[in-house]
C-alpha cells in the first residue's frame, strides 16, 4: 500500500511519537525528511526501529524553504522553536489552495490549555493519561498496596504517533478537499485517556475508581499457576463460562462464579480454587484443551517465548534490523509494512529542496 507516494513530509522533533508517526507515513510511501532537533535522545534500539527510511537533514540548516514545499509538517516542537527554524507554527503561515498544507502537532497536553507548557517525560506523560493508574504491582509482594509502574517503549508517545499518522492522512484529505490548510492537534494525554472506555463509566455511574487498590476490578481475569508457568483465563461470553465450569467440574467454582458480578466480587476466591485445579497441569495442555473448548485462555509469554513462537514464525512477523552493528529481529509493522525499506540517508536541506522543486 503506497497511497502517499507523492506526499512530502517534514518531520521535526525530539520524541518517539513524532518518529513513530514519521515511520508510519514513510511505510505508506511518503518522502519523509527527518530533522532531529537538539536534545533528541531516542534510545539506540528505538532509533534503529523508528528512524527507518528517512532522509535526515541537520537541524542547523535553514528549514523554511523545505517547510514551504512540504505537504505535511509533523512536529513536537512548540511555536517559538518552530519559528526559530523558519517553520510556520499555525494556519496563518501554511500554504492554501489545491495543494494546501497540513501541520500535525504532537505535544504532551496539546496546543491549548493551561498545562501545555509543562515539562514532561515518558514517565510523567504515562502518569497523566490514566493508564498509569491501572498498571500496578503489589509491593511488598502479597500486600494490599499496589504501586504504579511504567511499561517500556514510551507507550503514550507510541500511541500518539499512531494517532498523529492517522491525523496527518485525514487532515491532508480535508485540506485538499477544502483548499485550506489544516492544523491537527494531537495531545499525548488525550490519545491515551480516550481509551478509558471501561474505566470512566465505572466512575461516572458507580463512583468506582478503577485501579484503586480497594477496587475489585484491579484484577480482570484469573492468572493461575500451572506446573511449568502461568496461564491466564478470562471469559466474556456466558457460554465460555459454562464451558469452563463443565471442564473444571467443581461445584465451588460454579457457586463462586454464578454470574458476572459474582465472578468479579469473588475473583480472589476463584483464583485460589481454580489455581488448585491448574497447578498440577502443564500449561500447554491447558491451552490446547481450553481452546478446543472455545475458552479464552492464554499463556503469559516471555520475550524468549515470543521470539521462538511458531505462530509468529508461521506468519512471517519478524524482519531484520541492525543494532550496534549486529543483525537483530524486529517486529514488522502490522498493515503498513512495505515490501522493502529505503535505507536511511543523510542530505542537506538545499539538496532536498532542489529535489522537491524538480519533482514539481
Amino acid at each position: 500500500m503506497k497511497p502517499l507516494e507523492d506526499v512530502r513530509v517534514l518531520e521535526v522533533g525530539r520524541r518517539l511519537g513524532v518518529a513513530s508517526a514519521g515511520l508510519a507515513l514513510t511505510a505508506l510511501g511518503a518522502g519523509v525528511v527527518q530533522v532531529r532537533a537538539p536534545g533528541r535522545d531516542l534510545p539506540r534500539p528505538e532509533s534503529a526501529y523508528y528512524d527507518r527510511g528517512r532522509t535526515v537533514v541537520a537541524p542547523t540548516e535553514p528549514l523554511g524553504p523545505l517547510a514551504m514545499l512540504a505537504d505535511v509538517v509533523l512536529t513536537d516542537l512548540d511555536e517559538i522553536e518552530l519559528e526559530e527554524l523558519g517553520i510556520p507554527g499555525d494556519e496563518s503561515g501554511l500554504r492554501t489552495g489545491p495543494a494546501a498544507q497540513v501541520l500535525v502537532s504532537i505535544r504532551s497536553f496539546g496546543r491549548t490549555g493551561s498545562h501545555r507548557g509543562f515539562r514532561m517525560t515518558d514517565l510523567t506523560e504515562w502518569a497523566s493519561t490514566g493508564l498509569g493508574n491501572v498498571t500496578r504491582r503489589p509491593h511488598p509482594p502479597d500486600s494490599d498496596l499496589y504501586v504504579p509502574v511504567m511499561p517500556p517503549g514510551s507507550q503514550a508517545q507510541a500511541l500518539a504517533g499512531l494517532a498523529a499518522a492517522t491525523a496527518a492522512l485525514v487532515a491532508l484529505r480535508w485540506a485538499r478537499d477544502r483548499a485550506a490548510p489544516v492544523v491537527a492537534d494531537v495531545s499525548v494525554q488525550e490519545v491515551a485517556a480516550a481509551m478509558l472506555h471501561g474505566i470512566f463509566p465505572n466512575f461516572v455511574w458507580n463512583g468506582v475508581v478503577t485501579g484503586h487498590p480497594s477496587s475489585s476490578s484491579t484484577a480482570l481475569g484469573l492468572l493461575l499457576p500451572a506446573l511449568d508457568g502461568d496461564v491466564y483465563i478470562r471469559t466474556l461470553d456466558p457460554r465460555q463460562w459454562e464451558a469452563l465450569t463443565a471442564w473444571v467440574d467443581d461445584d465451588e467454582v460454579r457457586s463462586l462464579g454464578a454470574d458476572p458480578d459474582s465472578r468479579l466480587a469473588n475473583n480472589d476466591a476463584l483464583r485460589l480454587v481454580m489455581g488448585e485445579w491448574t497447578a498440577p497441569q502443564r500449561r500447554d495442555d491447558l491451552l490446547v484443551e481450553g481452546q478446543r473448548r472455545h475458552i479464552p485462555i492464554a499463556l503469559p509469554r516471555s520475550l524468549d517465548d515470543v521470539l521462538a513462537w511458531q505462530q509468529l514464525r508461521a506468519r512471517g512477523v519478524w524482519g531484520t534490523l541492525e543494532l550496534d552493528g549486529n543483525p537483530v529481529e524486529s517486529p514488522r509493522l502490522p498493515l503498513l509494512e512495505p515490501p522493502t525499506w529505503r535505507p536511511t540517508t543523510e542530505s542537506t536541506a538545499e539538496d532536498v529542496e532542489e529535489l522537491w522543486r524538480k519533482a514539481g
Partner: protein
Amino acid sequence: MSRAPLDGVRVLDFGWTWAGPYCGMILADLGADVVKVETSQHLDMLRLSGAFVDGVRDPERSGWYSATNRGKRSITIDLKHPEGRALVLELVAISHAAIENFSPGVLDRLRLGWEDLSTVNPRIVLLSLSAYGATGPEQTYVAYGDHVGYASGMASVIGHPDDGPTPINTFYGDPVGGMYGALAIVAALEEVRRTGAGRHLEYSQIEGLLTMIPGALMVRSSGAPVTRLIDKSPVMAPHGFYRCLGDDAWVAIAVEGDQRWAAFRALLGADGRLLADHADLEARKADEDAVDAAVSAWTATRSPWQVTVACQRAGIAAFPLMNSARLMRDAHLHERNFFQWVTHPIAGPGPLPGVVFRIGADGADVRGPAPLMGEHNEEVLMGLLGLDRERFDHLIADGAIA
C-alpha cells in the same frame, strides 16, 4: 459546522466487543457514516459490559458501549439468514469500508468474506482484526484484549524483575488494534481514490502489541538481557512514582540532567530536605535508594498537585498519577472540552471520553450518542437501500431483520 473530513465515507461496522468498534468510533468522530451491523440474536458483549447507568444491567445502559459506539447508526440483521446476508451485500455495494473482528473464518463461513464482499464491490476496504491473526497454527484461538497483553510478552517486561507478568490492566490490545485499523483504513481509502482497487487488511492484535515494545524485543533478540525497570530510568534519577499525602495519591517525578538535579536539590533544600550533592547521573544512580527515600519523605507531606506545581516552576518534569476521578476534575481537559456530554435516549445525559485527536477546530467531534439496538433499521434499510414497507415488514417477520 463545515463538512467533516470523512463526510461521504460509509463504513459497515460488524465489530463487536472493543477492538473493531473502537476503530469504527475513530472514523465516526471524523464524520464517516458508520453503520453498526448487530443482532439481537447474539448481543455485542459490550452491551452487556458495565458500568451500567443507574446500576441496571440493560443492553441500552452500558457506559462502555455508549463510549465506543457514539455517533454510529445501528441496524439489526441476522447474518445467518439468507435474506439478511443479501441485505448486507446490498449495503456493501454502497459502502467504502467494512470492519470485523469475529474469529477468523466466521465471515467466510457466512459467505460474507473478502471474496464475497469484493465481488459485490471491488472498491471496498475490509479490515479484519483478530487476536492471533487469520493464518498460522493458532489462528482459531479465542482471546480478548487482556489475553493478548499476556501472550505478546508485554506483561513480561512491566514491573519488578521478581514479579509475575504485570499487565496494563485495561484491555490494551483492543484500542491499539482499533488505532492501527483506523490508520490503515484511511490509508487504504486514499489508495482506492488513486487506484480504484479495494483491499483486505488483516491484523493480529498480538502482532500489534509487539510493535509497542520493539526495543525490548530487538535487545532480547541480540542475546542481551532486558531488565524490568519498575519505574526507574537508566538515564534519569530521581525517576519514579512517589507516594503523596492522601488516599492512593501519587506523583511522577523525572529529573533530567545535572542542572535540573541542582534545581531539584534547591527546591527540596528550601523545604529543609537535604539531598546529597551528587555531581552526576552515575552518582545519583549509585545512591538511588537513599535519594528516593528522601524524595518520598518530601512528597509524603504534600498533595500530588503541590509537588507538580513546585517541580514545574523549577523546570522539572512532574505530574500527578491520574485516575478517572482526577481526570474528570482536570481543568486542562475541561479547557480543551475533552469530555463530551451527550444525551442518550435511555441513559440520559452523561460525559464520554472525547476524540482521540483534533483536526482543525471541528474536524473531529463526538457526533451523537450511541444508537439503540436497531434504531436505524428503517432509516438505513428503507431510506438508504430503498426497501419498501412491505419487504421491510416481511424481513422482520421472517427473522432477517432481528
